[in-house]
Structure formats: structure tokens, C-alpha cells
């Protein structure tokens, strides 16, 4: 009882976290105005350039998600606190969503501009591999029943998956690819840079809101599991 007392789980309260949802709505609305009403169409691509405003923020924020997965997976291995495992899992879910979004938007963009839906170059292939690793991570969580074992295996898988992100990011510089290297403010029209950053912040707020809500759900689920387990074992409901 004393050893377990350190990490007693409680049903989380939302507190002030929902405000990030409102920030997301606000920034998204503002970003749409700058992206569609203020920033002009690209001189080569026309309005297809606007995919930049979702494709790139999705890719950046997926990196933040996977960084959180790595940090909390390491923390779980260190402290063995179930909450770290649940935060890593929530970040992985949102990261996988953004990873899929990056891939799909990239394909939609590639078809009219490059002329193909897909090429097996280093950037696209490594991004797909990362997506599959995290799809595997989520499958692993779904199939392993025992919470401690699930958390341990997931932590290792999560770290292995997260290492892919720097490789994906650098792939266009390390290897010769169809995908162009990262744009910088000097290769972007200033109005594009502004809209891009606004959208990136909007997606960041979505990310924070989603991860928090997912974590609250996961923790509530875990507490319920533990209470029913304790009840089934004949112990007191509140230890």
C-alpha cells in the first residue's frame, strides 16, 4: 500500500484546459481569413499553394506529438508512473492522425503539381514508415491486456518510432529526393509565411486540446478499470 500510494490515480478534471480548444477555433478562423482572403495565389501553382497551410503545420505538429511520445515514454521507463504511459499514448494517437493527414494532403498536392500521387523517394517512404510504426504502436496497445506490460512495450515502441522524426525531417537534405527541401522565410512570400505560422499555431492548439482530452479519457478509463478490479478482488473501493 505504501509503494502504490505514490502513483494513486484519480479521475482528472478538465480545469482550464478547454480554453485551448477555443484558442484553436479562434486561430483557425483567423488563419482561414489570411490564407484565403489576404495571401495571393502562387505564381506557379495558383490556389494549390494553399495546401501548404495544412500540410506543413500537420507535419511540424506531428513532430511535437512524437517528441512528447519520446519524452513521456522515457519518463515512464524511469518513474513507472502510469500517467506518463497514458500521456505518451494520447500524444501518439494525435501524432498518428497528423502523420496520416500529412501523407494524404501531400498526395493530394503531389498529383496536380508533381504529376503523380506517390513516389518512393526517401522523404515519402520514411514518412510512411513512421506512420506504420505508430499504427503498430496503437495496435500493440490494443492487443496487450496487462497494463504494466503494455506500458513497458509501448514505451520502447514509442521511442523507436519517435527516432524516425529527425530522419524524416532531414531526409530531404541527406538524400536526393523528389520532395523539395524545407522552405524558409526567404523562399516564401511574406504573406505566405504569416499565414503558415498562424495555421501552425492553430494546429498546435488543436494538438494540445486533443492530447489533453484523450489523456483525460484514458485516465478515467484506467481508474474505472482499477476500481472494478479492486471490487472483483473483494478489496475496498477506495484504498
Amino acid at each position, binding site marked *: 500500500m505504501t509503494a502504490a500510494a505514490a502513483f494513486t490515480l484519480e479521475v482528472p478534471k478538465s480545469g482550464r484546459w478547454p480554453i485551448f480548444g477555443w484558442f484553436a477555433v479562434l486561430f483557425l478562423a483567423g488563419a482561414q481569413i489570411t490564407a484565403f482572403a489576404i495571401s495571393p495565389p*502562387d505564381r506557379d501553382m495558383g490556389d494549390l499553394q494553399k495546401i501548404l497551410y495544412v500540410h506543413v503545420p500537420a507535419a511540424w505538429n506531428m513532430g511535437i506529438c512524437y517528441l512528447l511520445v519520446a519524452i513521456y515514454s522515457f519518463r515512464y521507463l524511469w518513474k513507472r508512473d502510469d500517467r506518463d504511459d497514458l500521456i505518451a499514448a494520447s500524444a501518439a494517437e494525435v501524432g498518428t492522425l497528423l502523420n496520416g493527414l500529412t501523407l494524404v494532403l501531400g498526395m493530394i498536392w503531389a498529383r496536380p503539381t508533381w504529376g503523380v500521387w506517390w513516389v518512393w523517394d526517401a522523404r515519402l517512404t520514411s514518412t510512411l514508415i513512421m506512420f506504420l510504426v505508430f499504427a503498430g504502436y496503437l495496435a500493440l496497445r490494443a492487443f496487450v491486456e496487462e497494463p504494466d506490460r503494455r506500458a513497458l512495450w509501448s514505451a520502447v515502441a514509442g521511442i523507436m518510432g519517435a527516432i524516425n522524426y529527425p530522419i524524416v525531417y532531414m531526409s530531404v537534405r541527406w538524400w536526393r529526393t523528389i520532395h523539395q527541401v524545407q522552405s524558409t522565410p526567404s523562399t516564401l512570400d511574406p504573406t505566405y509565411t504569416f499565414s503558415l505560422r498562424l495555421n501552425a499555431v492553430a494546429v498546435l492548439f488543436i494538438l494540445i486540446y486533443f492530447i489533453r482530452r484523450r489523456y483525460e479519457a484514458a485516465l478515467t478509463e484506467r481508474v474505472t478499470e482499477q476500481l472494478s478490479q479492486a471490487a472483483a478482488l473483494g*478489496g475496498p473501493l477506495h484504498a
Partner: protein
Amino acid sequence: MTSPELGSTLAPAKKRPKAGIIAMVVVLVAAFGWLMMGNLDKNVVFFLTPNELLAKGTEAIDVPVRLGGQVKAGTVTWDEKALDLRFDVVDTDGKGTIHVQSKGAPPQMFRDGMGVVCEGRFGADSVFQSTMLIIKHSNEYRAPKAGEKPQEMYKSLMKGSGS
């Protein structure tokens, strides 16, 4: 952690493998990184530049290969009836010209000076027969200058989507 009974049996067992697990993770990470960096560094080349292809000499004749470079300005000829597209690809240094023949309509962004990657074979007649033409876009995005009209690609795409 869960009930007092479970907590007392699990807690001591959970502490022991900590160092071992972390060491295992570090080793796996290092091995993975070494594999990625060591093995892939020089080998993952999606296409050859004209200079590289020409340097291969007869070795490069009639084997499947990807050629990447820039469309040389003023060399593009397009026969709309025969769907026959001809142009020269040059290296970014402006040297190493290769004649390319391609079938079918090119992607919308195909034009002078654009980066392209052609899939196909370099023939013995020194003409690269391209079976697939891919645009390689730069990382630059610019608003049209005053008086310039942006390309309206999505409209022309809808028109020509049958081809």
C-alpha cells in the same frame, strides 16, 4: 498500485529491470541510427543527374533509370496530336545536356527551367525515352508580380482530366 494486495506484490518487481530496460533502449536506438546513417547515406539516390548518367557511358544504355535535372529553356517541342513531347534536360550547372522524348501530356507545371525527373531508359541513340515525367518543385513560393497572373491550374486540370 491497484489494490493493496496487488501493489505489494508488483511494486518490488517493477523496480529491478529499470536500468536493464534503459540500456536495452539505448542499444536499440544506437543500432537503428547506425544502420540508417551508415547504410543509407550514399545509396538512397532517387535519380541521376545528366552528368552522372553521361559519366556512366555504355553501362547506362538501355537500363531502367531515373534522370533528374532542369528543362533547358527553349528546347521544348510538343506535338499535341501525337502526344509527343521533346525537351533537353540539363544539370543545375547548365552542363550535361540530354535529349528526352516523352509520351503523353506533361504535368501542368511543366515549363522552361522547371525541375523534372524522368523515368525511362537512355537509348543507344543518345535520346532518353521517358515513360513517366515527374515535376520536382523548388522550395520557393511567390506571389505573382504586379500585372502577372497566377496560374489557374485547378481549372485547366478539370478541363483536361480525361487525358
